[in-house]
């Protein structure tokens, strides 16, 4: 039996009656009391060590610990993410309402000594939505001064919602159409100073429209004619040219808590063959993050306006019009709820940290689509309110669950991206 050497100094007080009883027992039954106290403290410690030395065994972690260690040491998660020989699984990322998508992706980040990234993916969803893309990009060329990106994508989305044009479209007028488009975009830019990027972008877009596959809904072409769903009959190709300037000083784009991101993009779309659908499109997007209480609380503000300027006697086809509704703008409305030539959208979120891995958000969304530029104001906006959970790892949001309420009901969104993500400078409306 061992008595740790350290216990000798601790205060103790055994009642004298018990001591007396034990002494009596010791006199009557001496055997259990033959243990002898070591003469010295050092001897006591040595005895404890010798006792333990007789029962040594490898200090092996438990099975659970070994498993976790193997996962980390083997970089299992990283390997799954990286894939085999450049191939890996790509999950999600299709258009809203497309359902859960999965497919192979080929990724090479080691080309040209790591300066060039090549990526290509093919995905299909449980609702038979398909997307194929290919990308070649150099995000940090010439010591971060230049960047370029070439992106080709083909979509086959069999059931995009359309409710008719304008802010007064009826929820009950929900129809669906199929869109098959192929786009090739190129972007080249420079970063003259930190945070500031500017560049030119161009693309070619070929679109085919078809009858929506969602049999619960009426096909768009059965209820909306070319005067309402402009371009539903002509479906020209488009050439896009444009430019952009962006100032992004967010502290952490994966989960910003301070800073801002401002983008102005101007594009011109030429229909080919000329079908009376030429127009210019101005996209202005502002994000601002106002932290307080040491960034444990953040007010996130987002404003966006898209204005189109059709040429004389031209019109913007409905599938290239600005759209509102869904997980990224009006979260209390269905996806693609409102279409028109212009939109204005404002979002405000109050975020607070529950613990390091979870932030809560209370949000309010407002927005409207409108036909004439004179209607550019904050009147008669649709509104949505709600709350959300933001799960993050090392300050980067990897999943959010938002519940939005509006006069049209409520919507629950599970997204694996950050709200107010980067606006893509590309041709297709349905990324």
């Amino acid at each position, binding site marked *: *039996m061992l*008595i*740790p*050497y*350290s216990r*000798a*100094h601790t*205060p*103790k*007080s*055994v009642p004298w009656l*018990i001591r007396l009883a*034990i*002494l009596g*027992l*010791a006199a009557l039954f001496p055997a*259990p*009391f033959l*243990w002898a*106290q070591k*003469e*010295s*403290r*050092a001897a006591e*410690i*040595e005895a404890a*060590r010798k006792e*333990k*030395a007789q029962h*040594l*065994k*490898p*200090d092996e*972690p438990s099975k*659970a*610990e070994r498993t*976790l*260690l193997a996962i*980390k*040491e083997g*970089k299992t998660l*990283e*390997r799954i*993410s*990286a894939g085999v020989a450049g191939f890996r699984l790509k999950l999600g990322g299709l258009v809203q309402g497309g359902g859960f998508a999965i497919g192979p992706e080929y990724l090479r*980040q080691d080309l040209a*000594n*790591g300066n060039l990234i090549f990526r290509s993916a093919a995905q299909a969803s449980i609702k038979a939505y398909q997307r194929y893309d290919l990308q070649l990009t150099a995000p940090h060329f010439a010591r971060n001064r230049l960047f370029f990106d070439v992106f080709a994508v083909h979509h086959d989305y069999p059931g995009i919602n359309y409710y008719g044009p304008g802010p007064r479209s009826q929820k009950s007028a929900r129809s669906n159409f199929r869109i098959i488009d192929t786009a090739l975009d190129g972007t080249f830019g420079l970063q003259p100073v930190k945070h500031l990027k500017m560049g030119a972008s161009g693309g070619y877009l070929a679109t085919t429209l078809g009858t929506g596959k969602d049999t619960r809904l009426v096909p768009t072409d059965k209820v909306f004619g070319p005067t309402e769903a402009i371009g539903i009959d002509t479906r020209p190709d488009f050439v896009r040219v444009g430019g952009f300037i962006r100032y992004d000083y967010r502290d952490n784009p994966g989960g910003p808590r301070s800073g801002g991101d401002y983008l102005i993009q101007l594009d011109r779309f030429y229909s080919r063959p000329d079908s009376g659908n030429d127009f210019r499109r101005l996209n202005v997007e502002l994000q601002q993050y106002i932290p307080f*209480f*040491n*960034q*444990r609380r953040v007010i996130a503000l987002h404003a966006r306006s898209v204005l189109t300027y059709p040429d004389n006697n031209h019109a913007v086809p409905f599938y290239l019009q600005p759209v509102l509704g869904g997980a990224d703008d009006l979260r209390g409305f269905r996806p693609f709820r409102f279409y028109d030539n212009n939109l204005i959208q404002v979002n405000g979120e109050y975020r*607070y*940290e*529950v*613990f*390091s*891995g*979870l932030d*809560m958000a209370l949000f309010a969304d407002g927005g409207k689509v409108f036909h004439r530029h004179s209607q550019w104001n904050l009147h008669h906006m649709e509104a949505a309110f709600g709350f959300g959970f933001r799960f993050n790892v090392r300050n980067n949001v990897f999943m959010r669950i938002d519940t939005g309420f509006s006069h049209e009901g409520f919507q629950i969104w599970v997204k694996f991206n950050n709200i107010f993500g980067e606006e893509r400078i590309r041709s297709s409306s349905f990324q």
Partner: protein
Amino acid sequence: MNANTRVRGRALWGGVLLLPLLGPGLAAQKFRSDDPLPKEPPPLNAEKVMGRKLSDYYDFANNTFRKPGEHPPKGKTIPARGVNTLGEVPNSAWYTNRHFHRPMSIEELVRGPGNQNAPDTSARLTVVKAKTEGVSPGFDIVDSKGRRYNVKFDPLTNPEMATAADVISSKFFYALGYNVPENYIFTFSRDQIEVAPNVSLTDARGKRHPMTERDVTELLLNVPRTSDGRYRAAASFYLKGKNVREFRYYGTRQDDPNDVVPHEHRRDLRRLRVFCAWLGHDDSRAINTLDMLVEENGLHFVRHHLIDFGATLGSDSNRPNSPASGNTYWFDGGSAAREFFSLGLYVPRWARAKYPSLPAVGRFEAEVFDPERWVPFYPSAAFLNCLPDDAYWAAKQVMAFTDEQIRALVKLGQFSDPRAEKWIADCLIIRRVKVGKAFLPKVLPLDRFAVEDNRLAFEDLAAKHKLAAAREYAVQWSRFDNNTEQKTPLPGETSLRLPGQIQAAGDSEYSAADIRGEDPKKTVTVFLRKKGSNVAVVGVDRTW
């Protein structure tokens, strides 16, 4: 129920239930011939100790969602072990009494575990291993003299922050008694670095490939440069011996015969909580410890180290520390519930802390700092068991650092901005006082007991450090029976002068002085032993 009642209650129930086993304890003498033990006896040969790696994920989950190790039932306490009869920690493979017990000079403090092995930057430095652990970038190098180092860098956003913290804190922890590596700040140019053949690198995607010069260049692209274009790094000199990996803050190593005290009960680990609070070391977990199998005098034994102090003093190694760090665990159910249900209207005090706009400082402050509420990144079994007397012993060591000594150690961070140096030193000085105010009064803060000129002498640490005015204490002398632990009061002997009966006592006879202050729960009992003509202090018991 006060502490004394708790102790008595425990003994009573223990006595009733474990009657047959109490005999040896009853027969045991409170003090042995070699008490108080200044150092542990030489270790047993432990050459069969094998290296094994622990999972930091498991350690996190196990400590966050379970409660490993032995913990007292609610309302009870388990006194610290691994201490001598004075309540001090004997020198051992874990701990060496240093600054408090024999004040170190500034030169000694600055030297720390050593200062003669800085990397030789006059010649080439060879990368021999890529860093695979931790969050900050780095690698292992060998200098022209064949010395090996683990090298880490600062994040781009916070030059000097992590490297300074690594060096400064290593000196403090050394002075506080722990085994730590020699850490150095040094600078080098890119052309001094070369990669040895056959060095492999596992990239972020888990792919292993030969490490190339380009890998070094890419790593250095994410490292801040000094004004003269060089790279500043912290080099940790490789420890002597065979690496047998981390120790846990609970249990013992099953393959080490000398590891007989459960770690959650070791006073040197329990009170580490206070030191970590002072220095903002919330990353004090198993992954930042290291056991080395060393050989001395023909004996192999395990020496236990604390390593990696890059996440101290407001740094989180690769970024500034979170303001929540040190104030709440990564996950704390109660705190999370408060935040969740209050919709964020409940604002913790720490969220209002103010930090300087000094990149080299990270998030380190003293105003909101509350040493009693301080917690590490996730629960630690040893820290959870820290009792008032454990914290007191730590606090008196923290209070042993003077302002001048603190400033001298902070200077080792080699900050280019003097405001950063001043801020950290000022914070440490204020935090030191907070530690003293918080933990010294937890017990009767009397210390350094000795018999001088036939009087019992001691220091009132609260008065010494100006945390309280000089006070009077009630003293009651007793004879003490070392076999029965019975005290027989000596009537009228209530001064600090040794009673005549004690002075005239026979050899190896014991006496005791019960000292009380204003709070009757807080007492100190000082035990003395006559040996020859000398009377010496042999033990100290405290209640609170």
